[in-house]
């Protein structure tokens, strides 16, 4: 339907109007590219999402899920009544013992709700009243790639559209010179697992809905910069000539796609200006860098990407997703997680506070979390100061903040080992349904027919977790 609409739009507009008029038609084009009829399904609380994906799976036990009683059980084999024969990864399935490893980090209560947070997150603690901490997340996947794919697409095997693609397909873009779905990747200091471009791909949706990766350096978007020796003025002239030539063709063939192509070259030209402007942090006041921390002065860091995320949000980008690698702490966890937190704690919290100060937190949903949790028992040898943790899909923590979400609350309970969920479970589909709900989208109604089936992000599952909503 979208296709026909667009074709008709250009059949009507571009053929009848001269080249000069095309420029002013572009906002119309932007609207035509965006969104399905009937969406949003109801008044949205959030207009956009910033998803801070902590890739590799941070340990809930050392950051969020406070278990003071575990100190007494240090080194004690995890009781079978807790493990309940659940499957383990091949990395610890052969361990003869599963020694309980309490976190060596101190926890304290923060904010008016008294949210327990680890000493590793002093900045996050300051934003506690904005956060909705969900401690009862669980997933089906036990290995990184399927688990990330599950979070991104609602299915463990590659091939379905990512959540950002679904949203740009359903809601379109609010920006005329930036893509609707932008991704940024930063490198952590700990054990990193591989990531893949398909994690932000559009699956069976048309590729125009795929996430566009912004990189640090000369070309924030691939092929953005004109070749050296070629000025913006030359490019402008080039595009004018190109449009004229394409107009000749359009007159002769009447193919609406030619008009679209003319418009897309104009959009590309605008991106050549808007993206470097966006990526250029030199005009940010000193206070910004103080807020986001020292790292934020270095392009490509998680902190710098958090500033960019705010700038993208300001410019109307629908779905902004950061991936920060390096959370896969099978061994040497205490030292490595500390480094990861030094990189991520301050900027994550700064982003929430910054949005709030600018009045944007109301309609921006911020999500923070990894692809699964980590085990309470030590992978490898447990010592006084060192331990490792294996993958744990049965419970882990994430936080949400802003648009449509109740701040200053902790939700869900785990058992005394943070091994099983004791109350209010939230699965990946529920999270997706809830995110969509905040954006005014009924997750059962955002569908796309492919191979005879009406696919949706939440497959045949998912429920909106109303308790989390403001």
């Amino acid at each position, binding site marked *: 339907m979208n*296709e*026909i*609409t667009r074709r*008709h*739009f250009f*059949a009507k507009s571009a*053929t009848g109007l001269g080249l000069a008029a095309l420029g002013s038609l572009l906002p119309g084009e932007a609207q035509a590219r965006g969104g399905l*009829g009937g969406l949003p399904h109801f008044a949205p609380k959030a207009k956009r999402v910033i998803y801070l994906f902590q890739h590799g799976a941070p340990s809930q036990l050392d950051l969020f899920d406070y278990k003071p009683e575990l100190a007494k059980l240090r080194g004690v084999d995890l009781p079978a009544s807790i493990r309940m024969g659940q*499957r383990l*990864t*091949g*990395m*610890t399935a*052969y361990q003869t013992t599963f020694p309980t490893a309490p976190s060596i980090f101190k926890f304290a209560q923060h904010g008016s709700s008294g949210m327990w947070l680890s000493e590793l997150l002093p900045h996050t603690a300051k934003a506690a009243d904005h956060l909705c901490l969900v401690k009862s997340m669980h997933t089906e996947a*036990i*290995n*990184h*790639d399927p688990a990330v794919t599950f979070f991104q697409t609602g299915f463990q095997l*590659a091939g379905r559209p990512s959540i950002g693609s679904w949203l740009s397909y359903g809601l379109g873009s609010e920006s005329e010179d930036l893509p609707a779905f932008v991704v940024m*990747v930063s*490198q952590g200091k700990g054990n990193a*697992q*591989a*990531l*893949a*471009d398909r994690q932000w*791909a559009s699956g069976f949706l048309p*590729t*125009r809905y795929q996430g*566009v990766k912004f*990189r640090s350096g000369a070309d924030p978007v*691939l*092929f953005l910069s*004109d*070749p*050296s*020796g070629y*000025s913006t003025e*030359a490019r402008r*002239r*080039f595009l004018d*000539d*190109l449009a004229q*030539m*394409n107009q*000749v063709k359009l007159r002769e*063939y*009447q193919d609406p*796609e030619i008009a679209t192509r003319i418009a*897309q*070259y104009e*959009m*590309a030209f605008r*991106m050549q200006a808007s993206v470097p402007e966006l990526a250029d942090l030199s005009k940010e006041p000193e206070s910004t860098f103080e807020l986001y921390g020292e790292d934020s002065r270095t392009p490509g860091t998680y902190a710098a990407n958090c500033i960019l995320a705010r700038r993208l949000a300001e410019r109307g980008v629908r779905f902004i997703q950061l991936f920060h690698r390096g959370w896969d702490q099978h061994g040497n966890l205490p030292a490595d997680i500390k480094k990861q937190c030094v990189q991520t704690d301050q900027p994550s919290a700064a982003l929430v506070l910054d949005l709030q100060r600018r009045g944007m937190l109301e309609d921006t949903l911020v999500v923070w979390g990894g692809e699964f949790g980590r085990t309470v028992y030590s992978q490898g040898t447990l010592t006084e100061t060192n331990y490792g943790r294996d993958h744990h899909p049965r419970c882990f923590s994430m936080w949400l903040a802003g648009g449509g979400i109740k701040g200053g609350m902790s939700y869900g309970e785990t058992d005394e080992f943070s091994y099983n969920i004791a109350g209010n479970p939230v699965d990946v589909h529920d999270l997706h349904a809830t995110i969509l709900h905040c954006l005014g989208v009924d997750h*059962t*109604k955002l569908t796309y027919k492919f*191979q*005879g*089936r*009406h696919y949706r992000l939440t497959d045949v599952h998912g429920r909106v977790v109303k308790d989390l909503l403001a």
Partner: protein
Amino acid sequence: MILFLRLSTLLLLATAALAQRRVEFNRDVRPILSDKCFLCHGPDAVNRKIPLRLDSEAAAKADLGNRRAIVEGNPKLSGLMHRITAEKTAVRMPPAYSGLKLSPEEVETLRTWIAQGARWEKHWAFNPPRRAEPPAVKQRGWVRNPIDAFILARLERAALAPSSEAAKETLLRRVSLDLTGVAPSPDEMDAFLKDRSANAYEKAVDRLLGSPRYGERMAARWLDAARYADTNGYQYDGERVMWRWRDWVIDAFNRNQRFDQFTLEQVAGDLLPARRLDQVIATGFNRNHRGNTEDGIIPEEYRVEYVVDRVETTSTVFLGLTLGCARCHNHKYDPFTQKEFYQLFAYFNNVPEMGRAMKYGNSPPLVPAPTADQEGAQKRLQQRIDALERIVNGHATPASWTETAHWRLSSGLDAWFPFDQAENTTAGVFDKAGVFDGTAAPEFAGVAAYDIGDHFTLSAWVKPEGAGGAPPANGAIVSRMADTARGKGIGLYLREGKLHFHITSNYNDDAIRMESEGKVPAGDWHHVAVTYNGSVAASGAQFYIDGRAVKAVVSQDTLYRPFRNAGSRFREPFLIGAGGGKENRFRGAIDEVLLYGRALSSEEVEAVAARSATPGSSRLRWSYLSTDAPLEIREAWGELHRVRREKEKLERSFPTVMVMGEMETPRQTHLLLRGAYDKPGEAVASGVPESLHKMPAGAPANRLGLAQWLISKENPLMARVTVNRFWQMYFGTGLVKTVEDFGVQGEWPTHPELLDWLATEFVRTGWDVKAMQKLIVTSATYRQSSKATPELIQKDPENRLLARMSRVRLPAEMIRDQMLHAAGLLSEKIGGPSVKPYQPDGLWKELTMQDSDYVLSQGEDLYRRSLYTFWKRTVSPPMMMNFDSSMRESCTVRESRTNTPLQALNLMNDVTFLEAARRVGERMMREGGASPDQRLGYGFRLLLARYPAAEERKILAGSLSYHLDYFATKPERVDAYLTQGASPIAAGLDRRELAAYASVASLIVNLDEAVNRE
């Protein structure tokens, strides 16, 4: 926008002429029932809250106790009509919670259908194709072949006329791109324009079909369907080697292999009687799926995924069915049960494979797949070996000859430890031997640096402590491994008399462990050896005790990661008498340790293990030949070894390809509850779905039988599905738009009689693929102009009726290939390992683990056709992805085209296209003629295969003069702009002018026409 949408809907409705024509069940009604009702009232019982079924006529019209859903001829009495028109939401169907809704038009269709008698039909695609006579048409003169009659009849019904034939230039560019993937050269175009004969076009088509480029073009789409890639996918995404399969596909298209045979060999080439290597290579089709190598996976979970992938791919490609939907439950729309899914699963479930793929390289089962050149070289070496053997064998050992000096097999010897100069020695087998007391052990750095894929032999004489056959001490004989109990590396141990051989990457789940059945007695000298052929499987290792092969018991056979892995090095020293921890020191004496960088033959091990050369033994013979035979014989003997090693080296360099195989004892297949690997339900045997055609008589109950079933004349689907994909290649859309789904949720064909005619024609001509392409591209339908009119766009926006030829955006690979071709850069080389052309720096590094970085190819390999571009699944080539290439994660048959700003950036600023533009600029100046106008026209022709029109010439000339000024103003811009890519900037040309011409070439590269086939 909503206004336009409504308008178009109304138009479509008007043209469908619903009100007047008879409503057809298959075309009009079943799609509604299927899409909106089957979810709960279809083949799967799970959602069915009441017994009503709408997928079978009997059930839909059954008496449900005074109520009937459908009463023939009477909508008012039909319960269905009441429910779908009910005012109350609680009563109305489909229920609100389903998210489904019937449009007023759909309700009317159902009402009309019931009023007209509610006639039911079997789903069209499950009926065999019916070959109808090409229909009579008014404009008979337009018809070139039967395709046109079907197309024209439909146009005439819609009161539309076909378009005129495209200009000759357009036509040759169109058919050249469509059949070979590159545009015609100016010479080819001139020859065609000059040829005034009536069959000039047919001659051009024949020339193109005979070009080797044709096979590459056809293969490109097949690789999408077969999810071909050069890496494993999932997380680590290590490299695999499947290009021999890819080259087999190109060759199959070029030699015009019958499509039924093409299918048979890919599905079951390994099971054919008297199969050839190429037929086994063909089965790589079903091994192109992803493979998971992540540390810590549960292998069975992924082994099941591989089998599921094969079922899904097979059903999409050869049947156009979405059988994968029946993995977790009965199909919601089509008549396939979950059990039937697992019956098909059973055909693909007997591959001797592991769920965990090899981290680097191919996973078994695999075969060495030499190229023709390699086979030639192998044959020549074998001939040389035969000749040398004749010389050597022609010379007998003198009967009285005895060994004087101790002989040692030196061919392929990497290291030799005789212990004759050692500190702590005792009498050995040959001179002195080393004494091992369980404490110190000698270390040798840099020796035996074998990894899991290497070939090697470990050989030693041992005298374990103990007497009279008492259990000897445990201990390592030789090792190269971390000196801990479960350390990484290679070790040969003696434990309670038995030989143990370990290759360990991770002791738990990434290792080979095996022990000998026979024992080595203590207290005396015995020879022990193990050979290993690099197969990464226990079956590739062989124990020997005293020169005789002994059987092994394998306790672990799951090796998948090399020692040097993901950037980690492996620097352990070689140890004698130690390895595997302090408790594992050898006690006794060791002599004559020999390490070979190859797996010795049993005859060689026997000779190495012989203490003395007995008359008639190989050892005596070899000892003579290498020490005491006449000079020319000794030289021949030495040469023989050299050539044998050369042949071994060549054979080890053969690319391998993953292929299908059958286990001797098939796995028992179970229905998997909810599709989960760990929830087996009832046992099922292989079989084909009940609602499709029967197995051919006498077909075996294995994959070969399945392949015979697929290519059987009774199969209603394969020919239709295949010609429909061909149709999509030329017209942008299939006759059935849902090329992947011919089930009830698929789209009704725009021209059902034509589809059936083509399908029957395909079978009638013996599945002749080239003939089918020729039929399509020589039709008047194909030869039409692709110019549209506002009226046509209004009436038929998607051009489904084909009153004009479709104007189609080129596939990604064709965009790049034809630009390189115009630039004179495109390499003509066919096949071979995949190559790495330009891509922006750092893309792999950002996402992958540390040891995989993109290393740019050199020279010709930068300019190979795009189907040879290395396809890394997790970081796909960005240009290909920008232009809608399939991801190669899973089977993709639907072509997709979008139009985005990223494409614009890609064509403007990617070095690939800037370098090509510069080269076109050079060709303009060198070959184009003297005047700027001639030169511009020539460049235009190189890229677009036509001369520019006057208006275009003016714009191009304006652009040229702008750029001449632009580069003149700041001369430093010139070299900066021209420095693009690895090819040198042509000498002897004015650089400022060149930069200007290159800029105009770039302009042409970016034209909509350049990326479209008109």
